[in-house]
Every structure is written in structure tokens, then in C-alpha cells.
């Protein structure tokens, strides 16, 4: 019997091209302020925020199997912390990042309680947490209840500088989070994550520490969404709790991930792009736009749960990012 | 006309072909013992006949009608009853509730609650106990009783001795004796070859999804069946069509 030689590889030619292109794209985007006009910069900043939201919600639901209807808790918290930090005298842009970190820290003790809940109970439980945090934030006199306040510290910069700085911060955060997630997925923890995604019980039976893995994802997602909230605050300047703690944000995240592709990196990014485009074209349609979003989420979850990317990657057997292992015989 | 006609039936279990082109018939009043090693396809075959498992090819005719596409609850109403492997009782409900639920099949007949209790007197003191608290023998009796309450024309029994001690198995079969003597049509999966050949009129032996041997119980020797069971030597080809 001849011995079969085999090798294990992680990169395929296609994934090399994809990753290379992505890095090139990010570098190109970095010089955006030199070539793009103000409107485009604003739009791209918003897109970066959407990408963060989509990728984070996907990490939580698609990889850790945790569907949360309460991620707006962290979105609002991130913005709130940013307001508080700026008010305390910290420089604006660093306070955005720190706000994200603080949100992540809050998520740690929260995870010990919430992660014990299952499925639907976890989903709505997180919504309850969001509601409670909303109410508590309203109590802060700085926020003035639903009237809200503004990130006044931004006035230190003129509009043009502000725009460029927030653009770079958002781009940096997005790229940073994508990198963290990418590295995580390629690591041993990443194998655990994908195992849990595919079959939690089986994963536990081969020694995966399911709870710890989920906790890491939960906290990372909180950090990411908190960052997104702080970034969004920087673009819109005003902080009205009702806007940031609205369940609408989770609705957007769900739409992006379901339509793009649940459980895949590429899918979440695709979903963010699609959502961005749809919002640009149909956002003005008011309620029908929202009906469309909800309806799309409903239809995709029933008929195409793996989303568009899931369909594409199955149909054409493509995987752009090297997060798996390939056995080469 | 046969009561049950199975014609070139194919059933998959996931990607595995558990039942391959199985063809046989059952006449009214016959008692068929379905034997074979674990994984031979016996349970899948019974479930497919009862409609609990969708077949992928072939045909099943019952009492003259084609039931291949019929869902399980309609086949139950038509007169096929399955006592599933593992009993599958409603553990949170009482014995009485388990039995009376079967009236949903809508087939009045000789099997009433009283008749079932006559046949399985060990259930009488346990009527109000939750099915999950019953002993193995009591659970088996309840499961068989539940199937009987649908007043079936064809009774399928899947491994009634599974998980039961030898004494209890004796008792269950003693309880079934009257049923068998009354001329009920039965297909029974049984691991114990000696017992199977004793109660059955006909024996079908399956191997890897196909029928390896078929014949009247009194015509076949234990050795012949054992050979077919393990696939040793050359197994007798299956007899096609009605016998």
C-alpha cells in the first residue's frame, strides 16, 4: 500500500488575491481625503460604521450562535461614554476609542449573566438590558433625558478637519476590527468559534471551552458596536438616547447579516454594502423602506438563511478569506 | 389481494440508502418476523411503511390504495399502526392519556381502553402515573396498547424486547399471544431468532438494506436464517411478488 502524501494549506491563490486586494483597498481609502469630496467622505464614513456593525453582529450570531436583539445597548453606551469622556476633558478622538473599550469592559460582567440564557431568552434578555441602560443613561443630568446633548468638544475643530479626522478614525477602527477578527478566526480560538457555529454540542465534546469562546466574542462584539456608536456620535454630533438605544440598529444589523450571509466574513461585508446602497436609494421612502427591511429579513431567514454570499460561495465554491484549512492530496 | 404490498421500496437515511429495492407482501392474518443485524434497515423499513419516514423510491400499497405519499397520520387513520423502537411514549402524560390519544385515528373497533387493560393487566394500577415513571415492561405494554387503540388492520412492532430483561420480555410476549391467536396481521422486528421463528408464520431476513432470505417459518431452518443474517455463503434470492 503506497503512502499518500498530503499537505495542509491555509492560503489558496484566490484568497491571496483577495487579502492583497483588501489591503490595497484600505490603503487607497486612506488617501481618500486627498481626492474625494466632502459628501463622499461622509458617505464612506457611514459605510465604515455599517461594516463594523455588520461584522460584529455576524461574529455574535453567525459564529457564536448568539442572536441578540439588544446590541443597541452597546451602540448607545459607546456614544454615551464618548460624551462623558469628552465632557471630562479628554481629547475627542481618543475618547471615541476609549469609549469603545469601556463598553467592552461593561460587557464582561454582563456576559456572566446573559450567556447563561438560551436562544430566544438571550435575544430578548439583551433587549431588556438595552432598555434598562437607556433608562439609566437618561438619568444622567449631563444627558438631560430625551433632550440629549452634543459632543460639544468637536467644535474645537473646523468642519473640514473634523470630517477628515472622523473619516480616518472610522477607517482605522474598521480596518483594526476586521484585522482582529481575521486573526482571531485564523487562530485556535477561531477553530473553536467555527466548531461552535457548526455544532455546539459536538464542539464541546471535543474539548472546546464553549462558554469562554462565546464570552470572547460577546465582549469583542460589544467593543466593536460601542466603537461604532462613538463614531456615529462623532458624525452626527448630537446624542439623543432614544436614537442610539433604538432597536432599529439591531434591525439594521440583522438585515445586513441575513442578506449578506450569516456566518461568513465576506457575507457580513457584502451585507453592509447592500444595506448602504439600499439606504442611499430608498431611505427617503420612509416607512415602506423599513417594511422592506423587515420583509427582507423575514424572507431571507426563511428561504435563504445563508444569505447571498452563502448562496454564491456554495454555488461557485468560492472562499475569499483563508480562515479554514484545506487538505491537499 | 394482499393487505400490504411493498414494491421496490427505497428509503434513505441521510445520504445512506437504508432500504434498497425491497419487495414483499403481507396477507391478512399473517405474522411476519423481520430479522437482521443492526443497521440492516429493519426499523427504517417499518417507519417507511408507517409513514414516519419518507421513502425515495418505490411504492407502498395498503388495502388496495397507494399510500406512498400519505403522511403518517393519514396512514394511521387508514389502519396501519406502528409501535416505534424505543417506545416513544408521551412521558409527561399519564398512561390513560397516552392510550386515549390514539382515538384520534378515528377507528372504532374491538380495542377499547377496557380491552387494552384486559390484555395488559399490569397497567391497571398505573393508569394515572406519568408514562415517564413506568418500568420498562409497563412502558412497552402502554406503547403496544396505544397502537392497538387505533384499531389497526396492520400492526408493526419494532423491537419490543429492546432494553427489557428476559423475564419481562416473556411477559410481553405472553400478553401478545392472545393478540396473535386472534388472527391479527403483524410485522414484527425481533432480534431473538428463536422467538421470532416461533411466533411468526413467515420470516424475512434483511441484510444491508435488501431482503436476503424469505420463506415460511416452518420451512426454514435456524441455520438457513443465521446464514442469511450474517451474509455467509450464498443467501437464497428474495422471492418477488406476492406469495
Amino acid at each position: 500500500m503506497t503512502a499518500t502524501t498530503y499537505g495542509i494549506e491555509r492560503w489558496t491563490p484566490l484568497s491571496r488575491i483577495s487579502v492583497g486586494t483588501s489591503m490595497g483597498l484600505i490603503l487607497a481609502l486612506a488617501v481618500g481625503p486627498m481626492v474625494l469630496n466632502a459628501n463622499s467622505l461622509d458617505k464612506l464614513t457611514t459605510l465604515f460604521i455599517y461594516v463594523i456593525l455588520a461584522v460584529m453582529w455576524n461574529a455574535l450570531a453567525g459564529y457564536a450562535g448568539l442572536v441578540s436583539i439588544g446590541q443597541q445597548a452597546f451602540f448607545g453606551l459607546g456614544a454615551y461614554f464618548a460624551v462623558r469622556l469628552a465632557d471630562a476633558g479628554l481629547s475627542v478622538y481618543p475618547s471615541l476609542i476609549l469609549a469603545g473599550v469601556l463598553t467592552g469592559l461593561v460587557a464582561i460582567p454582563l456576559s456572566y449573566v446573559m450567556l447563561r440564557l438560551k436562544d430566544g431568552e438571550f435575544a430578548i434578555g439583551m433587549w431588556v438590558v438595552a432598555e434598562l441602560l437607556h433608562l439609566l443613561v437618561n438619568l444622567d443630568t449631563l444627558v438631560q433625558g430625551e433632550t440629549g446633548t452634543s459632543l460639544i468638544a468637536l467644535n474645537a475643530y473646523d468642519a473640514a478637519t473634523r470630517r477628515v479626522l472622523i473619516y480616518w478614525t472610522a477607517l482605522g477602527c474598521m480596518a483594526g476590527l476586521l484585522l482582529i477578527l481575521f486573526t482571531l478566526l485564523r487562530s485556535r480560538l477561531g477553530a473553536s468559534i467555527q466548531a461552535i457555529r457548526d455544532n455546539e454540542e459536538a464542539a464541546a465534546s471535543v474539548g472546546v471551552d464553549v462558554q469562554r469562546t462565546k464570552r470572547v466574542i460577546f465582549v469583542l462584539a460589544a467593543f466593536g458596536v460601542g466603537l461604532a456608536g462613538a463614531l456615529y456620535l462623532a458624525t452626527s454630533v448630537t446624542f439623543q438616547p432614544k436614537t442610539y438605544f433604538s432597536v432599529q440598529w439591531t434591525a439594521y444589523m440583522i438585515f445586513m447579516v441575513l442578506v449578506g450571509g450569516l456566518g461568513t466574513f465576506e457575507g457580513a461585508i457584502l451585507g453592509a454594502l447592500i444595506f448602504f446602497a439600499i439606504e442611499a436609494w430608498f431611505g427617503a421612502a420612509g416607512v415602506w423602506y423599513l417594511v422592506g427591511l423587515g420583509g427582507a429579513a423575514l424572507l431571507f431567514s426563511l428561504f435563504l438563511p445563508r444569505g447571498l454570499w452563502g448562496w454564491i460561495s456554495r454555488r461557485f465554491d468560492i472562499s475569499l478569506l483563508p480562515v479554514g484549512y484545506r487538505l491537499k492530496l | 389481494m394482499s393487505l400490504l404490498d411493498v414494491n421496490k421500496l427505497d428509503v434513505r437515511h441521510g445520504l445512506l440508502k437504508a432500504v434498497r429495492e425491497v419487495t414483499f407482501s403481507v396477507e391478512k392474518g399473517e405474522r411476519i418476523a423481520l430479522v437482521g443485524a443492526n443497521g440492516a434497515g429493519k426499523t427504517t423499513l417499518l417507519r417507511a411503511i408507517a409513514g414516519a419516514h419518507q421513502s425515495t423510491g418505490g411504492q407502498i400499497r395498503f388495502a388496495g390504495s397507494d399510500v406512498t405519499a400519505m403522511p403518517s397520520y393519514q396512514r394511521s387513520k387508514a389502519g396501519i399502526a406502528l409501535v416505534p423502537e424505543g417506545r416513544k411514549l408521551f412521558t409527561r402524560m399519564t398512561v390513560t392519556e397516552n392510550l386515549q390519544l390514539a382515538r384520534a385515528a378515528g377507528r372504532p373497533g374491538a380495542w377499547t381502553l377496557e380491552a387494552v387493560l384486559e390484555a395488559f393487566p399490569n397497567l391497571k394500577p398505573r393508569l394515572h402515573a406519568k408514562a415517564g415513571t413506568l418500568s420498562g415492561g409497563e412502558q412497552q405494554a402502554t406503547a403496544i396498547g396505544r397502537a392497538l387503540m387505533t384499531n389497526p388492520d396492520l400492526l408493526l412492532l419494532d423491537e419490543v424486547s429492546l432494553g427489557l430483561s428476559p423475564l419481562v420480555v416473556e411477559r410481553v410476549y405472553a400478553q401478545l399471544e392472545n393478540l396473535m391467536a386472534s388472527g391479527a396481521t403483524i410485522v414484527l422486528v425481533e432480534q431473538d431468532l428463536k422467538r421470532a421463528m416461533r411466533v411468526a408464520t413467515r420470516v424475512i431476513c434483511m441484510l444491508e438494506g435488501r431482503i436476503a432470505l424469505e420463506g415460511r417459518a416452518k420451512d426454514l431452518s435456524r441455520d438457513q436464517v443465521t446464514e442469511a443474517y450474517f451474509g455467509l455463503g450464498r443467501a437464497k434470492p428474495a422471492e418477488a411478488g406476492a406469495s
Partner: protein
Amino acid sequence: MIWFNQMLQGVLLGGYYALIACGLSFMFSVMRIINLAHGSLAILAAFLLFTLAKTFGIHPILGLAIVLPVMALLGWLLQRAVLERSARGGQLVPVLSTFGLAIVIDNLLFQAYGADTRSLTPYVGSLSYDSWGLPGGIFVGKLAVITFVTAVALLGGLQLFLSSTRLGQAIRATAEDPDTVGLIGIDARTVNATAAAIAMVTVGIAGAFLGMRASFNPYAGGQQLIFAFEAAIIGGAGSLWGTLIGGVVLGVAQSIGAKIHSQGFLIAGHAVFLAIVFVRLFLGPQTYRIRAAFGMGK
């Protein structure tokens, strides 16, 4: 005496919460699905009653004669078109699909009725503010008492239905083992659709009582879902009666919270809910498994 009064009001409020929670609880124990569109459907019922009252002058209680069959039909369709398929898709799908549905319902309501808050109080005469005087200078609202009594009656009725009727037993059996019920002639799909229809009828009733005691707007569904969920989870253990207990605990917590702080009503409710979840998870994993807690009758 003030505190006693607050607690009493809280208990009566709990009657409403039990009412809105019982459909959610029932659906979960039968189909193991938490329907995130639950609250929005209650609001839909309230709006339907509103239209009947405003445009056709039909008293809301009488309007139920029209709205409840509509809700039953909606429940049937919901089960067959959405929930049945969702249940096959794994654990994530039911949450996602029902959430999408909730968004669709909320925004269609907004499209139809606009942003204004509405209420059924103008159409029920003095029922919404009449009260009975009790010794000690305490007043209890007639509507609140009627709501509480209705909740008890409904829960009791459902309990009786599940334990004593053939359909109720079929529902329980199907909940436990949908494959095996087919073997004894029960059509699992029809049974589940009927259960969903029943759940929606309770939702319709809850919507009516919500409209009669308070106001609502197209986006109020989320809030109602959360209250229903909190009441159901707090009550958790065993039978539908747990839902009544949960509702009362929630109502009392909120009422006492309102007395303590102007914003305390909602905060107290959510805080007590989370506290109970925390305590239950860490101190009594053997006695209170939240999943098993949604048992069906004792």
C-alpha cells in the same frame, strides 16, 4: 397605607401583564418558539378595535367578536407560513423571522395610522376611570379588576383546556413529540396551527384591554413584548399559573419603583427581572431550569 395601595395597584397591573404574557408562554411551551412579533400583534388587535370603534361605532368589547376570529386566522397563517418553516431552520431562524415580521407589522401600522397615539378609552364610556372604593380610602379601578379577573379566567380556562380536552391533550402530545403523534392519527401541523390560533386569540384580548386602560402607537409592540417576556420568565416554573405570578411580580415592582423615583416605573421592572434571572441562574439551577419551566400543566 400608601405602600399597600401601590402594591395593590401593582397586583392589578399584574393581571394585565399575565394577560399579555399568557399567549407568549403558551406558544413557547407548545412550539418552543419565542414569537418576537407577539407585542406587535397585540397592538394590531388594538388598532383594529380602534378602527371598528371610530369608524363604525362598535364598542370595543363587541368589536372583539370580529377581531378575535381575525386574530385566530392570523395565528393559523403565522404558524403555517412562518413558524413551521422557522422551526425547521434551527434555533436562530425563529428569532430572526419573527423579528422581521414584527418590523413589518409595526411599520405597516404606522403607514395606516400615522404616528399619533390612540386609545380605546373614549369608546368605553366611564369604564376606564370608574373605581370601587375600599376601606382605608383605597380605590381600585373597575377596569383593572376586570382585567385581572379576565386574566385568571383565561389562564384557568387554558389550563383546563390543556388537561381535559382531547384537542388540549393532542397539543401537549404534539409539543412533546411531533413525529410520534402522527403514528396515532394526529396531524401535527393542524394541531400546532390551532395552538397558534388560540395563542393569537389571547393576544387579541390582551390588545383590547391594553387599549381600554392606556394608549398605544404603532411602535408600542416592542414594549409589550418585553413586558410579556419578563412576566413569563419571572413566573417561569411549571404551569400557566406561573405567568400570573410573574405578571404580578412585575406589576408590583413597577408600581413600587414609580413611587421611589419619577423614572422608576420601567427601571424597577427591568431591574427586578434581571435580578430574578441572575438569582435563579446562580442559586437554583436544579430547581428552576428556565427551559423546562415552561411545562404544560401539572
